[in-house]
């Protein structure tokens, strides 16, 4: 056991690490509340990118020369960081991807392409991001399998009773997110996995929204597949990872063909390399892979508990302030929530509100948040979503709430 160093949560120091936050937008200080779309990057991450290109940039894995070795070592060290952070058993259970979407697509194609049969059933939660719906639809259609939604309750929580019923159909795989990007709901994935396993179904967990906010332990969860996205967790764009259990990954088809992923190539037939290389065709996003590890280090330096404590404070504060406004309607009120606040203001279209807030220098997201089925189940076209990161402040929330009020006055 490593004893944690004493950390003191110093919000000002944290903010100072994000140069972009010092910016004026439309003449006003930027308030960035679009963190669920992508987070901003600390200096440490930006600097690590520069260091990579100025000191060790080279193609990895095959070079005998020094730079290639340094780059390879850094890349593999980052894989190890991810392994430890997610508590995977082996480093080769971590596959670098370009983001959560590619992770899901990889599994849908490489697992589904090999094992999915006509008539098979895949359960997909009704609060999934399109990235955890469409890949299953595509492969299911190819294979004659069926994708069934797990309904959600008015509270924004999964309907676990309905899920129990659906499990009786013996699905082969269940796809669910750990945290919903549209509602903020934290799903009981450990329980979902346990129930699914009892019925013989594998479970893929979409952790795009959990990585930035909470401790993840894939072994404790007993997840079969777990996908994360780097750019939402203070890391570079185009970075991400898939965790998969060794025995599952070993049995799967390769995903892409190319350099790195082969053992031998002949026109008469080729053979595949061992894990993790089998799934990493072509020159990877080396900078992204390496620096994703630095972003994780950065989060751990602050401490995930501190991060989620702070974000939770912001969420509660924002909710109580918005509650005072007339016509405020929160969308998604699960008991267990991450720092995502989706809502509507009566008589105001989300798009209009977003435009006015932008004029005030406040960045929120409006629309369906790539989760149309969620919007359909609430019978709304979309929401306004404010999502908080570790660098956000109560003062920013005050400005935001004031902005919402001002906008509503203009628009109503």
């Amino acid at each position, binding site marked *: 056991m490593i004893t944690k160093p004493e950390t003191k949560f110093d919000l000002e120091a944290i903010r100072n690490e994000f140069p972009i936050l010092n910016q004026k937008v*439309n003449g006003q200080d930027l308030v960035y509340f679009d963190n669920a779309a992508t987070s901003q990057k600390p200096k440490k991450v930006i600097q690590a990118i520069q260091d990579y290109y100025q000191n060790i940039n080279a193609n990895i894995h095959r070079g005998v020369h020094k730079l290639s070795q340094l780059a390879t070592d850094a890349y593999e060290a980052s894989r190890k960081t991810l392994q430890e952070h997610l508590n995977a058993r082996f480093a080769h259970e971590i596959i670098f991807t370009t983001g959560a979407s590619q992770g899901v697509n990889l599994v849908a194609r490489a697992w589904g392409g090999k094992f999915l049969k006509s008539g098979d059933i895949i359960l997909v939660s009704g609060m999934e991001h399109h990235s955890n719906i469409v890949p299953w639809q595509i492969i299911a259609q190819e294979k004659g399998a069926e994708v069934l939604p797990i309904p959600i309750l008015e509270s924004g929580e999964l309907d676990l009773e309905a899920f129990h019923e659906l499990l009786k159909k013996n699905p082969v795989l269940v796809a669910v997110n750990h945290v919903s990007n549209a509602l903020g709901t934290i799903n009981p994935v450990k329980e979902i996995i346990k129930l699914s396993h009892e019925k013989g179904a594998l479970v893929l967990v979409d952790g795009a929204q959990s990585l930035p906010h909470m401790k993840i332990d894939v072994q404790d969860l007993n997840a079969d597949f777990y996908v994360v996205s780097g750019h939402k967790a203070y890391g570079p764009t185009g970075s991400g990872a898939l965790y998969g259990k060794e025995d599952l990954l070993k049995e799967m088809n390769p995903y892409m063909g190319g350099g790195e992923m082969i053992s031998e190539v002949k026109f008469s037939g080729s053979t595949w390399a061992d894990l993790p290389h089998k799934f990493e065709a072509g020159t990877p996003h080396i900078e992204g892979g390496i620096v994703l590890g630095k972003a994780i280090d950065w989060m751990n330096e602050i401490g995930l508990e501190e991060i989620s404590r702070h974000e939770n404070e912001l969420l509660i504060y924002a909710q109580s302030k918005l509650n005072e406004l007339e016509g405020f309607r929160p969308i998604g009120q699960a008991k267990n929530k991450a720092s995502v606040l989706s809502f509507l203001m009566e008589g105001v*279209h989300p*798009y*209009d509100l977003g*435009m*006015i807030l*932008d*004029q005030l220098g406040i960045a929120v997201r*409006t*629309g369906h948040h790539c989760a149309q089925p969620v919007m359909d189940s609430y019978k709304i*076209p*979309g929401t306004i979503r404010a999502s908080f990161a570790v660098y956000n402040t109560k003062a920013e929330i005050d400005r935001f709430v004031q902005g919402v009020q001002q906008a509503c006055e*203009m*628009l109503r």
Partner: protein
Amino acid sequence: MESIQEIQEEIVDDFALFEDWMGKYNHLIDLGKDLPEIDDAYKTDDHLIKGCQSRVWLHADMKGEKIHFSADSDAIITKGIISLLIRPLNHRSPDEILNADMGFVDEIGLKEHLSPTRANGLVSMIKQMKTYALAFKAKSL
């Protein structure tokens, strides 16, 4: 009737009166509120313009030689923008519409609406208006 360009200049002048974005947006919201209602029969998926975050319905009729536009949106700012586009282009011949330079939106200081992102439907709206014009022109040939 004034020319397309004259109307555009008028609009630009109107907006020039406002010193800050608030004034501009309030004016835009007022324009949106004043937009004549579209016939409900045209608020169908066929008339939806793709690529807008808010829903936008646009319909065009040929009355004589001239095209008549009607439109609606569920977002009020979007309605205001539609109104800006319809005012100069309404009751014009297909050729006039096809040749119209719509750069005046930029001059108003509403550039953020002009960016070709899919969140913003302005470009799609202009395109759709010109597509209608082209269709009517083709029919009349």
